[in-house]
């Protein structure tokens, strides 16, 4: 399966060519940077990481190495520390112990390679900005202090909105967007970051079917262009269909690896404890074989 998907990826990259996948203005840049990064086979190394909130551990001694150019699902029951793992990698919560490297570098040197889609509920959607403003924020990290976004940044923001099918909503105040549309705006903002490695916290939570489809499209396109996506995901049934690689987490790491060897009934049982009905369905989905792509 993993070879299969890589081939698939290459084909797609060939097809993608100059249009669609590559944003205006930075095409050259990006090609160069993805070439050097393409040599790396691992994008994130999490080594012996423990995270605690108010002395209560949330992640315990987690050791994972995430492969590059894959769609990776982080799966586990509520309170398993999925979001915390993402936040720990992004430096949003302090590590009680352990070490994390991104493309072999410490976080500080890898910031510009990272894109982030936080949970939708974490922001105030009544904030006085429109969809375009939010997406433009994806460019801020590259601008540095005081400098304002320029024409190129605006074009990239617009292109990112178009990619998630939201070009018509650019000037819509964000509180007037549906939940799915808000999620797409967040995704567009991450695309505008033009990152190599994306972290998404429940990108499919509470979205409508059309948005779910649009997001999956974007994820596959990202993979085809050599990007890595690490997403917290709740719907066990769609894990094998949407993702190549899975991290099963329940405070401790239960298992991590390619879907077909790791997303097994036994591992899921270990992750979720006794809640079997749900798991049986998911396991059934796995048994049905390799997911159809595209």
């Amino acid at each position: 399966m993993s070879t299969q998907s890589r081939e698939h990826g290459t084909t797609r990259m060939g097809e993608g060519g100059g249009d669609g996948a590559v944003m205006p203005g930075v095409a050259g840049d990006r090609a160069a940077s993805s070439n050097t990064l393409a040599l790396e086979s691992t994008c994130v190394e999490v080594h012996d990481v423990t995270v605690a909130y108010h002395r209560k551990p949330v992640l315990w001694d987690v050791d994972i190495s995430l492969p590059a150019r894959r769609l990776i699902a982080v799966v586990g029951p509520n309170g398993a520390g999925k979001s915390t793992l993402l936040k720990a990698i992004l430096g949003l919560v302090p590590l009680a112990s352990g070490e994390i490297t991104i493309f072999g570098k410490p976080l500080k040197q890898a910031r510009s390679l990272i894109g982030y889609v936080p949970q939708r509920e974490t922001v105030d959607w009544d904030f006085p900005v429109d969809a375009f403003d939010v997406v433009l924020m994806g460019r801020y990290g590259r601008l540095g202090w005081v400098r304002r976004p320029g024409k190129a940044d605006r074009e990239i923001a617009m292109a990112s909105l178009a990619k998630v099918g939201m070009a018509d909503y650019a000037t819509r105040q964000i509180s007037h967007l549906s939940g799915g549309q808000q999620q797409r705006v967040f995704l567009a903002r991450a695309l505008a970051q033009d990152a190599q490695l994306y972290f998404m916290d429940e990108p499919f939570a509470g979205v409508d079917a059309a948005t779910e489809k649009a997001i999956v499209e974007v994820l596959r396109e990202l993979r085809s262009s050599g990007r890595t996506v690490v997403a917290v995901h709740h719907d066990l049934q769609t894990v094998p269909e949407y993702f190549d690689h899975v991290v099963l987490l329940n405070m401790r790491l239960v298992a991590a690896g390619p879907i077909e060897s790791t997303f097994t009934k036994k591992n899921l049982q270990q992750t979720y404890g006794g809640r079997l009905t749900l798991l049986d369905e998911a396991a059934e989905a796995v048994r049905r074989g390799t997911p159809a792509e595209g």
Partner: protein
Amino acid sequence: MQEQLVRLLTLQDANTRTVLLGATLLGVASAVVGCFAVLRRRALVGDAVAHAALPGICIAFFVVGDRNFAAFMIGALVVGVLAAGFVSFVKAATRIKEDAAIALAIGGFFGVGIVLSRIIQNDPSGNRAGLDGFIFGKAASMVSGDAQLIAAVAIVVLMATGLLYKEFKILCFDRDFATSQGWPAMGLDLGLMALVCVCTVVGLPAVGVVLMVSLLVIPAAAARFWTHRLGTMVVLAGIFGGLSGMLGTALSATIPAPASGLSRGWPTGPLITLVAAAFFLISLVAAPRRGIVADVVRRASLRRRVARQNLLRRVYEMLEPGGDLSATWSVGDLGRVRMSGVGGVHGQIRRAVRAGLVEAGPEGFLLSPSGQAAAVRVVRTHRLWEVFLITHAHIAADHVDRDADQIEHFLPAETLAALEAKLVESGRTPLGVPSSPHATLGIGAN
């Protein structure tokens, strides 16, 4: 009094000119910084800082032993920052939440301040401190040197906010995302709080510790009614704040003080706050889209539209079995239907006639051609809507809390086509809707 006000506002007197300019710039700066403080939900920390400034001023008086404006400001700033730090510490280190921590800081520091100020005023030399002016503000007691300092600080604050506009924007909207991009969120938060502290402290002589927070919050809240763009909101808040500072100060200097009591004129703080509150009230009532009036108008027109659509749908359903939409009907035929509000059936029909949807014929009413088209549209939408609720709503409930008649604009084309196909299948396609290309497309797509 009018002449006096005109003389003031036309800046004929040099000292007044400086004081007014200071108050205006202060209003602008506080309002601009206040926008971000409000959006970052830190406005009340400004209140704690302001109240904590009073003991700071008193301590500064003990140290310097005289009314020294700059020393007062430094004392106020130090203790104010201490109060802000106290709030953060209590929030982080204990189970007490931020609102309670702020209340603690306000009460505790202000209490100490009042005690200290009484001690100073009981001392024969204490009168010179003019401490009462800092409680409710007294621009009249400012000398032009004070006002110049205030103006200079306000300009620096405005420049800093302007430079850090993008950084504050992303901080206030999505702190975690900002951090993930490498922005020092903690540092930016501290920077924003520092600007709030500085504004608050220099505003004290004009507005006073009790009401200073209103100059941070009210203009921002008023501006929010007029726009949904941060840039516009900041500019508008600045204008409101500036005008509040200017007009409030001018009024306090010109309104004759009551004969008894307030022998030394009106305090400035309440007047500045009242002017700001007036801007807020006007915004609350009159702002387009978000104001109360606009809301009432919108609700009324929505109610009328719903009533009109109900009428059209009722007429359509009545005529549907006969297959002739241009048939004549009477009000009696509609009688059994419950019509919601807005002037009853007769009123609604009158309105429909005025709108050209219904014509009064010799034997009753009939739908005009445009009325027929409208009825078909309403019924079609209504039925699509029903089908949608039955088949799709469990997935996309958040897509559909809009006006049903705009369903076309909110659903993806393929969903709409599928819905149409379902209507055709169940034989419920409204009359007069040509078996549309959409429907066939929909069946094909399935």
